[in-house]
């Protein structure tokens, strides 16, 4: 079943065409890698899907429904949640509070509920959900620590925890392995697989080829804003056009 359909998406910034009529489809339950050399348009594609940009033309359909022109928060509510390049956390809050913010869909309350404490049950359910997510991601021991005090690997895990707390069905991960040592990378790969096994579809942008090849079921390769190739990691690895793009062909 197709969960995300990218249909002829073009994004222009003034005279610059960052994405040029790109189409691809993501199947429910897979780990999809979106790769390509620097400036290929991977992050731009992510921002278009998550609603931070609006495509100049083309359509993006999620579970059959167009999401073009929606605000980021409403797309998140639909079930598409992104993580950010570099580590974006609420540094001043504890691990627990960080994930609690993520529970927004479940825990949201209005002013009167807040003043009169009528939402206690819902907040308790949210707190339980936070512990469940932290347990799942192996962060439960650190829940009282400030986010800023965590080592890099745990910070990334926390970023994913925040996203998971919002109960997504499609998770967009923007360079989850950047700056990690091999050990941290292996741990993060395991976590990512675990997330997928819990029934969440994953699309990730990544430069770490070892991680991408080891993790993804299927790859979509962009170059200069255009779709260059698609296929399994093995197919892509042996694709002449991909090799040319990465090694700066013609040589």
């Amino acid at each position, binding site marked *: 079943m197709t969960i995300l359909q990218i249909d002829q998406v073009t994004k222009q910034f003034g005279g610059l065409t960052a994405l040029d009529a790109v189409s691809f489809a993501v199947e429910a339950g897979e780990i999809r890698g979106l790769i390509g050399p620097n400036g290929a348009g991977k992050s731009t594609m992510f921002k278009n899907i*998550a609603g*931070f940009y609006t495509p100049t033309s083309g359509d993006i359909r999620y579970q059959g429904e167009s999401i073009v022109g929606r*605000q*980021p*928060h*409403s797309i*998140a*509510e639909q079930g598409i*949640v*992104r*993580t*950010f390049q570099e580590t*974006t*956390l*609420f*540094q*001043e*809050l*504890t691990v*627990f*509070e960080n994930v*609690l*913010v*993520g529970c*927004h*869909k479940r*825990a*949201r*309350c209005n*002013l009167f*509920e*807040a*003043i*009169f*404490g009528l*939402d206690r049950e819902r*907040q308790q359910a*949210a*707190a339980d959900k*936070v*512990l469940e997510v932290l347990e799942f991601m192996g962060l439960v021991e650190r*829940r*009282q620590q*400030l986010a800023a005090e965590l080592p890099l690997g745990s910070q990334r895990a926390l970023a994913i925890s*925040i*996203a998971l*707390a*919002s109960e997504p069905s499609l998770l967009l991960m923007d360079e989850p392995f950047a700056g990690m040592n091999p050990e941290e990378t292996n741990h993060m790969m395991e976590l990512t697989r675990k997330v997928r096994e819990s029934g969440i579809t994953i699309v990730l942008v990544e430069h770490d080829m070892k991680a991408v090849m080891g993790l993804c079921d299927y790859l979509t390769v962009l170059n200069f804003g255009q779709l260059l190739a698609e296929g399994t990691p093995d197919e892509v690895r042996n694709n002449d056009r991909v090799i040319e793009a990465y090694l700066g062909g013609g040589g």
Partner: protein
Amino acid sequence: MTRSSGVKRLFAVAMLAGLLILPHLLQFHHQDLLIFLTINVLVVTSYRLVTLTGEWSLIHAVMMGVGGYTATLLFKQFELGMWFTLPLAGIVAAAIAALLCFPLFRMTQFYFLIGSFAAGEAIRLCWIQFVDPFGGTGGLSGVEPPLIGEIDFLEPVPYYYLTLAVVGLCLYVLYRIENSRIGLILHSVHWKAPLAESVGVDTWRYRALAFIVGSFFVGVAGGLKVHYLGTITPNQFGVGFMVFILIWVIVGGYNRFYGPIIGVIVLTLFDESIRSLEELRPAIYGAVLIASILFLPNGLESLVARIRQLLGKGAAPADTSFTDK
């Protein structure tokens, strides 16, 4: 655990008793001042709610004026008593804030600061230009406090108790809001709006909510003030007063609920204590402000945190009010 909560309860009872006895220890002039100080506590605390999302508006003083003028006009034209004018003062201020959200929250940071200032001045100039009904530069007068049976609230002591009750209730509600889910989301919008948005938080709505609720409470404060003072003029709510609000909040500290309250109390007491210095007063006041910002960049509230640490409790400097215990 029980010992610490017992100490807290004792502290609360002592503070309440102190607040109730306080006016009887003061002279008439100081009783007046005490009422205005109590009202200003509500002004800074409601302003804190607005700043929680990271947007510092310059319209808060004018919103207090909106509440004040609303109470005045309702009292004079419709002869409504204070029990009606106070909540309506808040509601009208909140309604105007709600309208202003649409242009103002298209802006952030400096642009928001300037935009909110301009919107405030526009409102204030209306009070000056439209002599009917606002009375122009001279403003309006003849507003009276309520009379319940034998108690005449024109006297400072009864009015102080009334003010204390209203402000106390408002502070309680503001405290509840800040320590609820909504408070957590307001913090998250301040620190990383895109991250909050990525998990489904409508950041626009929360910015607007903080602004509208903050305006409601400062509107109530405006109503309280005009019912005691009896007169209202546009200049009471000009840039000068707005700057004082900013100074109280910054000197007091804005990372904790009680920071701005400490700021307004300490600075008001200090200003009063150097009254005898006459011409030197503004210079000394200014010097102390600069010194306090230089040496206590996190505000007077950081002193409280340090004292608590010295006493061997409250080891965690961070506010952990949202964390599970």
